[in-house]
């Protein structure tokens, strides 16, 4: 079942992703917004509402960061609101844009996601020390890489997966990113390079992790009747889904992301998808760590539990494979300005379905694509299903 109005994406924009951009957050928003509007042949006069997304204020050190970005996001004197679901924010901001239009309240919505992590000294990772429960976890000196190392370990142990199999994801995505003009960490590397890179928190090594980045992304959404006037080539948002699991991540088995499955089921139901591996032609699951791409492919029901490493080794997830995964280069290759990285994935599916992905274009005329992001304390899944 669809919403009252079918919603189309009619334009997309993206800034460079870099470790330390000189632009302010507002300027990054402006860059992505301008590109998205230009690509749709629209101006701000055509925009009825703005859905904004950004992850922790602690990066920029700006309280009510969304309010600060109103001007840069083209939202001046318009209905503007910011959604925030941790790392899941990027894809979720597109979901938020969907309900602005699907509700019938607005004909158009500008979706903007921004992250400027480099303002946080001495390293953006410090912002993550305040995401833990102040009584139970913070006194342990917990870091983000710690808890993901626990999850990676559990995933490997449960299915008997080797680090070599997981490293293939990093090799593939960084190579895919060589074709992405905005990419920060594109590279030709080998499995050996990953296994020999600095150990961060076993089993996580440096080349298993995406970088910290600055950047912004934007989409223009329009209702069906308006979209048809703007473009002959709209991409439809046919399914959205999101789900949150318990705060108490210590009390559940980390080998499988139930919340991603629930979010995917919500989106698949809306889009009428019964057999995801057959019906999804191209996917951008969230890959801040290489094992997460595998973990999420399983959560998204794109393969059986524990089967994703095998598909990766067989080349099924390569750009020219049967189920191309992260043809953009993902977070590992393009970079990870958190909210902007999630929305970059939606932009990539939009370009892939329009046949506008250039050297990154997956063969076989893809018709249905999916993007997903993940966030909070290993507890949030956000999903979007797009169709040509």
């Amino acid at each position, binding site marked *: *079942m*669809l*919403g*009252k109005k079918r919603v189309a994406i009619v334009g997309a924009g993206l800034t460079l992703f870099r470790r330390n951009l000189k632009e*302010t957050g507002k300027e990054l928003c402006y860059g992505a917004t301008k590109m998205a509007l230009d690509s749709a042949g629209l101006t701000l006069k055509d925009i009825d509402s703005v859905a904004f997304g950004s*992850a*922790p*204020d*602690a990066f*920029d*050190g*700006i*309280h*009510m*960061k*969304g*309010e*600060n970005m*109103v*001007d840069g996001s083209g*939202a*001046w*004197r*318009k*209905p*503007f*609101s*910011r*959604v*925030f*679901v*941790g790392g899941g924010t990027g894809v979720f901001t597109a979901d938020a844009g*969907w*309900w*602005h239009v*699907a*509700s*019938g*309240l607005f004909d158009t919505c500008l979706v903007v996601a921004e992250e400027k992590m480099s303002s946080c000294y001495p390293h953006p990772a410090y*912002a*993550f020390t*305040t*995401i833990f*429960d*102040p009584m139970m976890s913070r006194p342990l000196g917990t870091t983000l890489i710690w808890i993901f190392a626990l999850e990676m370990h559990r995933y490997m142990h449960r299915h008997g997966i080797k680090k070599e199999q997981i490293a293939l994801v990093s090799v593939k995505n960084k190579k895919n990113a060589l074709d992405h003009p905005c990419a920060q960490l594109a590279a030709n590397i080998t499995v050996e390079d990953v296994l020999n890179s600095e150990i961060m928190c076993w089993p996580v090594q440096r080349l298993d992790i995406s970088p910290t980045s600055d950047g912004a992304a934007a989409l223009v959404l329009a209702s069906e009747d308006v979209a048809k006037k703007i473009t002959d080539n709209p991409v439809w948002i046919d399914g959205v*889904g*999101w*789900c*949150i*699991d*318990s*705060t*108490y991540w210590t009390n559940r088995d980390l080998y499988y992301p139930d*919340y991603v499955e*629930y979010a995917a089921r919500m989106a698949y139901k*809306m889009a009428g998808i019964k057999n995801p591996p057959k019906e999804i032609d191209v996917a951008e699951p969230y890959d801040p760590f290489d094992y997460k791409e595998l973990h999420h492919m399983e959560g998204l029901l794109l393969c059986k539990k524990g089967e994703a490493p095998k598909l990766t080794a067989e080349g099924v997830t390569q750009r020219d494979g049967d189920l191309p995964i992260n043809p953009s280069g993902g977070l590992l290759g393009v970079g990870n300005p958190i909210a902007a990285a999630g929305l970059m994935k939606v932009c990539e599916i939009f370009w892939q379905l329009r046949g506008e992905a250039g050297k990154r274009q997956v063969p076989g005329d893809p018709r249905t694509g999916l993007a997903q992001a993940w966030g*909070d*304390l290993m*507890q*949030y899944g956000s999903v979007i299903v797009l169709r040509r």
Partner: protein
Amino acid sequence: MKKLEDVAIVGVGCTGFRPLTPEFSYKEIMFEAATRAYADANVNPRKDIDAFVTCAEDYWEGHSIFDEFVPDQLGAVLKPLFTVSADGLIGLATAYMLIHTGQFNTVVVEAHSKASDILTFNDIVAFALDPIFNRPLGGHPYYIAGLEMNRFLHETGTTREQCAQVVVKNRRNALANACAAYGAELNIEDVLQSEPMFHPLNRLDISPLADGCIVLVLASSHAAKKLTDTPVWVRGVGWNSDTSWLESREWGKAIYAKLAARMAYKMAEVKNPRREIQFAEVDDSFSYKELQHLEALQLCRCGEAGKLTEEGITGIDGEMPVNVSGGALGMGYAPEVLGLQRVLETTLQLRDQAGGRQISDVETGLAQSWRGIPTATGAVAVLSREVK
């Protein structure tokens, strides 16, 4: 815009507001308000609720990615829940959109304040200022409200006595509201002789901080008719952001409130607000704000709000009662909950459940919020006993 079906408020829950709540955590006050709201709507959150919207900002909470910590106490584990970094009334508008997509029948909205946990409130507010141009000016950021009040008094000819009358009225109204933290019997002299703070604001012109939580249950018209005999209909919502940039904002007028009201009135088919709105709950974070907002909402002519207040028109027995709840001045300034305070009172009045402060024979009321210094973001909802 095509005509939309109405959405109803079918459950309300409130903890009451108090200056200090050291015996409760934010999780406990959320649980209490949610339990009351679910009992009021006679719903089981795990079975009967389709989506949850929580309203929070990281810096108020002292956590990064605060939405991590909300699902368990709301009964929302493995359910579609998300956070909007906004006032509760924008949360309500978001729930309204979700229901209008046709995908959600019942949506919960939550906002809470544990302002008493914030040791240096003014420093947190200062973090919302532009870090390069405005923050280095230093001082308590409420000076911005002082400047704005000065401009408003100058442009409209409103007097400080008229502003003080707002304080006297709202603090007195709060005496009849068991949820209010700051009920008091004052006179104009008390306000004018209270400690000067940010000229021309005195201490009693400023709403003092409070802790508390409000949860609402919203439902589609179809679901509402099954759940309750006393639905309160959301006939229109609107929200808008002017710039938070001090250099280019409108200082005398609340443009955001005017534009948000225009949107809500159009949706609610309100042509003559003064005649069709019988009572209003508007933002009164600072005494002058009630007057400025009444004018922006077209509930009176520009420059007239002070006189109407002096004449008692906005008193509980007047022709246009305003902030019968006590407003933020009487209930307490609870960041991000202010909009829901206004909605709660409007709902209770329309349900004939306001006890000793019940206004007789009311059909339609208005709730309005502002996000506080330094933002220029506000929202409006038109609520009614009858569908339009």
